C-alpha cells in the first residue's frame, strides 16, 4: 500500500474536525446560539463560555458551531445542485458534439466571465437577500466549472476502444454516457467537487459578510466577521474566531481535494 500524500492526510483531519463539529451542532451546542444576555456581554473565556460571549452576550462557541452547520449545508447544496447540472451539461456536450458542444461550452465561457458576487448582488436586488439566493448564486457559478471538467474528461473517454465496442454493440449515446463515461470520470468530478466545496464555503462567508447571505438570527461565520468589525479594538477575538474557522474549513477542503487529485492521477505524483 502506497503512503497517502501529506496534503490528503492533513486535509482529511481538518475536514473531519469541521464536519464533525457541524454534525455535533445538530444534536448539541453548549448554549443556545441565539440566546442573548446583556448582563454577560463580552465575557472572557470561562468554564461556562469556553470562548467567551459577544456584544449581545451570545455564546461564541455555540454560534461558531451553528455557523459551521449552516456553512456546510450551503456548500453541500450549492455543489450538489451546480455540480449535477454542470456534469449533465458536460456529458451532453461530449456525447452529442457538433453545435450542441460548441453552444454549451460558449455558455460556460459566458458563465465564467460573470463575477459570482455580482450575480449574487443582482439576485439580492431582485428577490431580496436570503440564504436561498446565496445558495442559488453559488450553484450558478459551479455549473460552468463542472461542465468544463466533465466535458474535457468525457471527451478523453469517448476515444477509448471500449466505447467504440459499445457503439459497435448498438448502444446509444446516452446509455454509453451513463454506463461507460460517467463511471470512468467520477474520480475527476469528485476531486473538483471537493475543491469547489472549499470555494463555496468562502463564497458563503463573503456573501454573508456583505449581508447577502444568512440573515439574522441565523448564525454565519461571515456575518460574525462583519459584526465584529466595528468592535475590532474593543474585542478583536470576536473577529479572530470566525476567521480561523473559515481558514480551517477552506484549507481543509482545498488540501483534501488536492490530495485526492494526487491519489487519483498517478502522473502528477511521479512528476513531483
Amino acid at each position, binding site marked *: 500500500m502506497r503512503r497517502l500524500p501529506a496534503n490528503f492526510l492533513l486535509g482529511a483531519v481538518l475536514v473531519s474536525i469541521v464536519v464533525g463539529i457541524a454534525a455535533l451542532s445538530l444534536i448539541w451546542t453548549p448554549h443556545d446560539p441565539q440566546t442573548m444576555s446583556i448582563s454577560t456581554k463580552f465575557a472572557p473565556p470561562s468554564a461556562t463560555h469556553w470562548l467567551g460571549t459577544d456584544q449581545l452576550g451570545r455564546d461564541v462557541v455555540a454560534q461558531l458551531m451553528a455557523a459551521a452547520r449552516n456553512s456546510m449545508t450551503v456548500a453541500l447544496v450549492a455543489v450538489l445542485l451546480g455540480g449535477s447540472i454542470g456534469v449533465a451539461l458536460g456529458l451532453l456536450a461530449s456525447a452529442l458534439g457538433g453545435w450542441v458542444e460548441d453552444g454549451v461550452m460558449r455558455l460556460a465561457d459566458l458563465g465564467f466571465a460573470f463575477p459570482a458576487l455580482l450575480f449574487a448582488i443582482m439576485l439580492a436586488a431582485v428577490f431580496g437577500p436570503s440564504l436561498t439566493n446565496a445558495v442559488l448564486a453559488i450553484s450558478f457559478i459551479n455549473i460552468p466549472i463542472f461542465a468544463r471538467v466533465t466535458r474535457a474528461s468525457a471527451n478523453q473517454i469517448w476515444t477509448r476502444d471500449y466505447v467504440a465496442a459499445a457503439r459497435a454493440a*448498438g448502444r446509444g449515446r446516452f446509455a454509453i454516457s451513463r454506463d461507460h463515461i460517467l463511471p470512468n470520470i467520477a474520480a475527476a468530478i469528485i476531486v473538483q467537487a471537493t475543491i469547489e466545496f472549499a470555494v463555496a464555503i468562502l463564497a458563503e462567508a463573503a456573501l454573508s459578510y456583505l449581508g447577502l447571505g444568512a440573515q439574522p438570527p441565523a448564525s454565519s461565520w461571515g456575518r460574525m466577521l462583519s459584526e465584529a468589525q466595528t468592535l475590532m479594538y474593543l474585542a478583536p477575538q470576536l473577529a479572530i474566531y470566525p476567521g480561523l474557522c473559515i481558514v480551517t474549513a477552506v484549507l481543509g477542503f482545498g488540501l483534501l481535494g488536492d490530495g485526492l487529485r494526487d491519489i487519483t492521477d498517478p502522473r502528477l505524483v511521479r512528476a513531483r
Partner: protein
Amino acid sequence: MTDAPLLEVRNLTRRYKLPRQSLLRRSPVLTALEGAGFSLRAGETLGVVGESGSGKSTLARLIMAFERPDAGEVLFNGSDLHALSSEELRGLRRGFQMVFQDPFGSLNPRRRIGWSIAEPLRANGEETQVTYRVAEALEQVGLHPADAGKYPHEFSGGQRQRIAIARAIITKPALLVADEAVSALDVSVQAQILNLLMDLQDDLGLGMVFISHDLAVVASICDRVLVLQHGKTLESGPAADVLRAPEHPYTKTLLKAAGAHT
C-alpha cells in the same frame, strides 16, 4: 450459400481536416483513404495490409460505421450502412462486430467482464438467458464461465483478447472486423488467438476483415489480400497470387520484411 457478397465496399474515400497552419490559409486536408473497394463473401477472410498511416484503421472505422465517408458506400448484406438512419443502423449492428488492437483499452476497467460481454445483448433488448449465453461465449473462446464475475485487470493480454472476441461473437454476427487484433500480443499468444479466430470462423461461418501490418500473419489466414499505402490501394487479389507474385515494389518490401522474422 448465395453468391451475393456479405460485405461490399465501393470507392470508399475519407479525408480529414488537419489543424490550420496559418490564419490566412485553408486548413490542409489529409486523404486517409481513397477509392478503396472490395467484396467479401460469408466464410471468407480478407487481409488488409499496410504500414502505419496507410488507412487500414480508417477503413475499419468506416466499415463499422463509426464515422462517415466523404465518398463511397459500405454495403452490408445489400444495405448501405452510411445511408441508413441511426435507428436502422443500430438495428443492424448485431450483424457486424469488431475486435480491437489493444486488449487493455477495449474493456471498460470498471465493469465485470460478464457485463461487458453481455453488452451487445442488452443493446439489442435480448434480456433472456443472458447468463447462459455469456457462459457459452466464454467457453467458445476457451475461458471458464466463472470468469464472468472478474474484472479486466485480473486477466493477461491474451485472455483479454479472448474476452473481447467473446463479446464480438455473442450476437452471432456474420462479419468480424479484426483491427490489428494480435499485434499487441506475444508471438506464442498470437498463434493461439489466430487459431481461435479461424476455429470460430469455421464454426460460425464468419466473414472476416483481418487488418494487420504483418504480412506473415495475413498470409497464414487470409483468402484474399488488399495492400494499402498512403490511403491508396496498391494491389488486391487472392492471397496466394499476391504473395507469390507481387506486382508492386511496396508489396515486395513488405514481403521481405515479413520473411525476415519468420
